């Protein structure tokens, strides 16, 4: 079975299932994964920081709340916290216009915020495919620990 994660959404899955998010742009698809139990979770983060925004009702939307919430979810599902590693993809800058817009560079800020949160929680980031200017569909297979990345006009890649 393929577990789907939407925009500003999170979910968990265990082998032999896989977990997928379609068409990541500036958002970040973070996977937390325990190779010993083959349990994983994915969060589709849209914005770096819930604290600067008044409407933080959905923790999955923000890096600062989403990573922590995902950690709780995978541990509840049976993953061992000390075994967890992370992989992430996304954080592209889809457009650039002459006006220097911090909103357009939200991708790199999302990536930085997720990294900071992982560091805070003591989870090691083992691989990433982030930045650039194209969308990504990402699928994680907890059986093998492979994170498959598809993009338009590019060869699929595994990190």
């Amino acid at each position, binding site marked *: 079975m393929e577990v789907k994660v*939407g*925009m*500003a*959404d999170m979910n968990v899955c265990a082998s032999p299932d896989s977990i997928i998010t*379609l*068409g*990541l*742009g*500036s*958002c970040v698809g973070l996977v937390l994964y325990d190779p010993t139990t083959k349990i994983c979770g994915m969060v589709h983060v*849209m*914005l770096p920081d819930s604290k600067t*925004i*008044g*409407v933080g*009702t*959905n923790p999955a*939307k923000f890096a600062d709340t989403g990573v922590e919430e995902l950690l709780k979810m995978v541990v509840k599902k049976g993953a061992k916290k000390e075994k967890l590693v992370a992989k992430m993809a996304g954080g*592209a800058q*889809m*457009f*650039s*216009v*002459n*006006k220097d*817009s911090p*909103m*357009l560079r*939200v991708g790199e800020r999302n990536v930085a915020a997720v990294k900071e949160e992982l560091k805070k929680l003591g989870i090691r980031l083992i691989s990433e495919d982030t930045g650039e*200017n*194209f*969308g*990504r*569909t990402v699928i994680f297979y907890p059986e093998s620990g492979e994170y498959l990345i598809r993009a*338009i006009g590019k060869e699929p890649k595994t990190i």
Partner: protein
Amino acid sequence: MSELTLESISTQYFDVLKELGNIGAGNATTALASLLQCKVDMKVPQVLTLDFKDVGTLLGGEEQVMAGAYLAVEGDITGSILFLVKKDIAIHLVKKLMGDMASEDFGEMERSAFKEISNIITGSYLNALATLTNLTIYPSIPDLAIDMAGAILSVPAIEFGIMGDKIILIQSQISDDIDIDGYFIMIPDMESYEKILSALGILNI
């Protein structure tokens, strides 16, 4: 007024967009007919509010390949505009403009032609907004992305995401030989919402 959220102003903003959609699509139809040298019809545009999770499905799935033109807006109001159509529709429009010179693979010439078409369409909407509100609005040069719908729409979704969990868009359908579904998304910055609504006499500040 800093307590405004997208949810709290969406009813008024919805009505503004409906009016804007009607006038803008009318202008765009006239402009396109003269640019493409053919007869262009239009249907009444729809204004849609979507939850983030449904954003991709509207356009035929998150992985549907779309052409999106993005512009920054400055002047009395600031914000951004995204115009998008499915890639095959973009190619159809480009072929209309360029004739047999156009190729399917979206090279520099095709990108440039699609930017011109996007300029005209977004300009039609912005003119409608400027006329309705009496505000001065300058669009930037557009940037173009040919990519998955989900990835392109992540940009306005994130900009709306600061204020709420929904995205508002105008769906317009025009037709020449084929039906052309175009999506127009306008994301004013928070203080610009207030300016637009108060310029229209809807919101008293």
